[in-house]
């Protein structure tokens, strides 16, 4: 089963994203801060990470960089989708430079999120 890790310190947003992705037939895990998110990514080895930018302990960019620099080549290649209110031109540059695969700007549409997650995963990963 395709596994997605959602890392967001806002429980309402994290739960909503997890619900919508769960409805696509994906297995979803949720973490509430960057440090826990990075540890979970190393342990669970998800197929995709949906990452908030502004988080306590370790922000989304730091997590993204740490993933890209991981000695495990498979983990270093994991697609990362930044779900963030920081989506101005310079933010996009910084996000992509840190290794983000794609962005979803807050305020966001769950339909757009679903489309971008589907596009970032290998074909056939998503049902329905």
């Amino acid at each position: 089963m395709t596994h997605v890790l959602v890392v967001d310190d806002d429980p309402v947003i994290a739960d909503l994203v997890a619900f919508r992705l769960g409805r696509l037939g994906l297995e979803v895990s949720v973490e509430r801060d960057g440090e826990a998110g990075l540890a979970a990514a190393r342990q669970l080895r998800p197929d995709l990470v949906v990452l908030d930018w502004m988080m306590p302990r370790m922000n989304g960019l730091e997590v993204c960089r740490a993933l890209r620099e991981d000695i495990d080549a498979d983990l270093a290649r994991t697609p990362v989708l930044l779900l963030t209110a920081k989506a101005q031109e310079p933010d996009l540059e910084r996000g992509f430079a840190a290794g983000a695969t794609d962005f979803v700007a807050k305020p966001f549409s769950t339909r757009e999120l679903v489309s971008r997650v589907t596009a970032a995963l290998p074909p056939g990963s998503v049902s329905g």
Partner: protein
Amino acid sequence: MTGPVGGVLLAGAAVTALIIALLLMVATAHLLRGRRSARDDRRKRELMPLVHAVLDDDPVDGAPLPDVVGAPADLDEIVLELLPQLRGSDRQTLRDLLAERGVVSRAVADLTARKSWRRGRAVALLGSAAGTDHIAAMVELLDDRSLEVRCAAARALGKAGDPAAVGPLLRATHGERALPSGVLGMALLDLGTTALPVLRDSLTGRNQVARGLVAELLGVHGDPSAAPLLEALVRDAGEDLGVRRSAAAALGRIGSPTSTEPLVDALSNSPDPGLQRTSAEALGRIGHPLATIPLLAGLAAEDIAVRAACADALAALGADGRASLEAVATGPGAAAPVARAALDELGPAVRRAEPVGAA
């Protein structure tokens, strides 16, 4: 001796008891807050599936429709928390949900409440929850007797996103119940790019405070269509100086090369150092080579702020501008210190990367 010692001991015991009582009160308050927070989180968790079901655009066949009207009041809190983070059909679904639960109609009724906090809360809620449905009623609160309510109304109008609010918000820049420019500016920015045509039209309005604010906002938006109008303001010697400065700064942010000529004219011919400085800064942002000679001339200005702005602008013009600055920096004139400061600001790496004389 016993008397004074006993008194001191008694006072010490009283102080200790007071400290212990205070510590107990703080600990109890902390405990209660923790419990309340845990209870709120639990309630939210219980209600989240209901929100998910409402937002689910592909419900499972045969699944019962959620009872959103009869759900506890905590649901409104969750929805109001979620609303600003979502857009498109999700946001509309949540707005419909609040309307269905009577939240919107209760807020409309509260707009005329006697207590100012209720009016403020109501207008803030409508700004998030009602979209463009109650703009006229919200606009009325821009003239409320309470400053807090007027500020809440301005912010709410910005969030509601209806360009029809531009006029009323700009009218609130003056008069007895005027609002702070910062509050109005944020509200006008929140309206987004749909407000740009109305903002451009407002550049020719009668109110100079509003014209200055609009000029600034058009610059923040980086609206190229506004450039000719802003250029006309910069050229207009009869216009208020504050408005002309705001227009010059806005042209710098927009960055259109066609704005170079009016800005050069303002830098070279205006008697106002403020307008000269702002024009120099704008020329630096635009970066057109035609600005090099006027900016070099500006290095001889009487006002040190103008000289510094010209030096910074030359430093931003690329290799030619920096070469000119190097020449001034090594000379004996009054402009040498500001030229050196501008070059120091750039750092040696930049100067080495583009050697003097390189095009």
